[in-house]
């Protein structure tokens, strides 16, 4: 697939502070890619180097095969939806949406029909003559979206556009944005610190930490096979455990927790030192009866947190290892667990992910 955007060895420094450090990023044509990371991690700076508001200290920005590194924003075929929407307060909804077309010196009739289509696309028909201050947050959001999309950019850049909306509206907009993107086929680059939002909307996620991309991959890959402790912690919930690695003499490896052993499928590790693993809470199978086979151990329920559809259980093994498990909350099930219960846990070897030392967070792990 063709790369719509490429960052090649891009760095951006503000004084002594490196906001982005030697990043390579390829965004494929037509995909929905999310830059996900905590605030101040450099994701917005990456976006702004693509929109043209920041010029990289080093490296090259490519857009549709052309070097745009030093091109000003108004000469780039990308459009941005701003976090604060940045609607022009002196222009009506229709005038706001027509702004980009006017700048392209498009004919008045063309402008009008395209504005009309854009207004309908974001369900704002009838509001064309309203002024921005007469709109709700969700409506402003739609105008900002229409204003950017009406220009038919090669890439739409979205800088935390949903952050200011309330939870319900945000969820609705997530689905709507995703639908819009697949219908229009425009490449979307979305920036957010909300991991759930990233999982719901993206085709691929690039997890950003301290100016670097920790991991980039499909949504399911990022969730099920986090590469580093940072990714495992940042996305969803994770049990991160560390133990010495051992061999049973053959090719298989296991982690020795003393009181129990966990076999891992990853055979690329030697028998030296210790490794760090990640187990998602829902992958810990619980039973009230002793379980057979590998990777089984017992624990006590220390805390039970009701979360609606699921129950979150805090477990502690006799040896003092703490784990979090999540189980479906079925009232009729005989397999329900409460505080103080003794439970038997089993983790399938496939569900154990061995983590690399974080690229940015030092040598946690080995």
């Amino acid at each position, binding site marked *: 697939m063709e790369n719509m955007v490429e960052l090649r060895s891009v760095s951006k420094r503000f004084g002594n502070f490196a906001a982005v450090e030697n990043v390579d990023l390829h965004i494929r044509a037509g995909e929905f890619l999310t830059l996900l990371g905590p605030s101040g991690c450099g994701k917005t700076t990456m976006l702004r180097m693509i929109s043209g*508001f920041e010029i990289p200290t080093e490296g090259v920005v490519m857009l549709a095969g052309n070097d745009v590194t030093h091109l000003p924003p*108004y000469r780039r075929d990308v459009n*941005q939806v*701003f976090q604060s929407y*940045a609607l*022009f307060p*002196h222009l009506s909804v229709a005038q706001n949406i027509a*702004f980009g077309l006017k700048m392209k010196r498009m004919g008045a009739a063309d402008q009008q029909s395209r504005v009309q289509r854009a207004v309908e696309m974001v369900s704002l028909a009838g509001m064309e003559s309203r002024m921005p201050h007469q709109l709700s947050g969700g409506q402003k959001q739609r105008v900002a979206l229409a204003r950017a999309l009406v220009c038919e950019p090669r890439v739409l850049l979205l800088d935390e556009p949903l952050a200011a909306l309330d939870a319900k509206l945000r969820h609705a907009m997530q689905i709507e944005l995703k639908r819009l993107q697949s219908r229009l086929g425009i490449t979307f680059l979305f920036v957010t610190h909300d991991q759930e939002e990233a999982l719901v909307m993206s085709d691929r996620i690039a997890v950003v930490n301290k100016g670097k991309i920790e991991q980039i991959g499909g949504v399911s890959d990022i969730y099920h096979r986090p590469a580093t402790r940072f990714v495992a912690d940042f996305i969803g919930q994770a049990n991160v455990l560390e133990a010495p690695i051992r061999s049973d003499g053959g090719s298989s490896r296991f982690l020795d927790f003393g009181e129990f052993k966990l076999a891992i499928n990853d055979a690329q590790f030697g028998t030296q030192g210790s490794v760090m693993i990640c187990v998602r809470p829902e992958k810990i199978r619980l039973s009230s009866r002793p379980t057979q086979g590998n990777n089984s151990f017992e624990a006590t329920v220390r805390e039970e947190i009701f979360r609606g559809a699921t129950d979150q259980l805090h477990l502690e093994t006799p040896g003092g290892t703490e784990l979090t498990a999540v189980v479906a909350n079925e009232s009729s099930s005989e397999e329900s667990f409460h505080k103080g219960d003794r439970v038997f846990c089993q983790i399938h070897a496939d569900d154990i992910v061995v983590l690399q030392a974080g690229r940015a967070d030092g040598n946690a792990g080995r």
Partner: protein
Amino acid sequence: MLSPLVGWLALFVIAPTLILLICSFFENAGMGEIDYRFTLQNFARIFQGEHLRFYQRPYIHVFIRSIEYAGATTILCALIGYPVAYFIGRCDEKWRGNLLMLVMIPFMTSFLIRTYAWFTILDKDGLLNSMLEALHIIPNIIKQPIELLYTPAAVMIALVYMYLPFMILPIYGSVEKLDRTLLEAASDLGAGPVRTFFRVTLPLTWPGISAGILMTFVPAIAMFAVTRIMSGGHIRLIGDEIQEQFEQAGDLPFGSALGMALLALFVVIYLITNRKSAAARPLM
């Protein structure tokens, strides 16, 4: 809460204005005395062929001349003041206070002193000409020392200097409030710096410009003394005429009528600028 304020306004604004208004309908008895008989003669005199010492023209021409000078002052103040205000409003926050202070410092001295200070600059042997000579611009590029003092140019320099801060301050206020991301949004949507300025920056800072126009134009029309000093007495605006009626001619009713005519002019200007700023629209 309201009544003390109303009392204040009544005492210091409404009452003097009413006194002038009533006075303007009486006849002049000469020597600062008023003959309490109703007449419209004072207003008729403004428009009719009553000639002045310097122009041999009706008083209405003094009004027109005042509007011309005030208008030119306002336009020059806007052209010079906008970039200054924009620069201050856009620079680092920690510098803004100091820069605004620099704009205001001259106003801590009397305007007469500031006006006479221009003499030492614009005089034939003044600072301006000696600087040009030191730089060998005189006589290499310009043949003779520039004689600015006592010319309309000197009057304009003094007026612009006098009113520039009244233009800078309100524009600064609206530039400071201008959301930077709006300029980024314009750029993102394909507007270069020039079109961003005319389509976004200018319309959004128009309230400041409009306030600046009002705060410059209105007092500039009524300005007195400065014009007379800088022109050596041969350029007289309406403020000078009013002052003369009260202080030299002793014709209080006619002075009052001139004052009332000026007030009417202010009201018209106010209505015009007010309507314009309410309908602030992009200019391009």
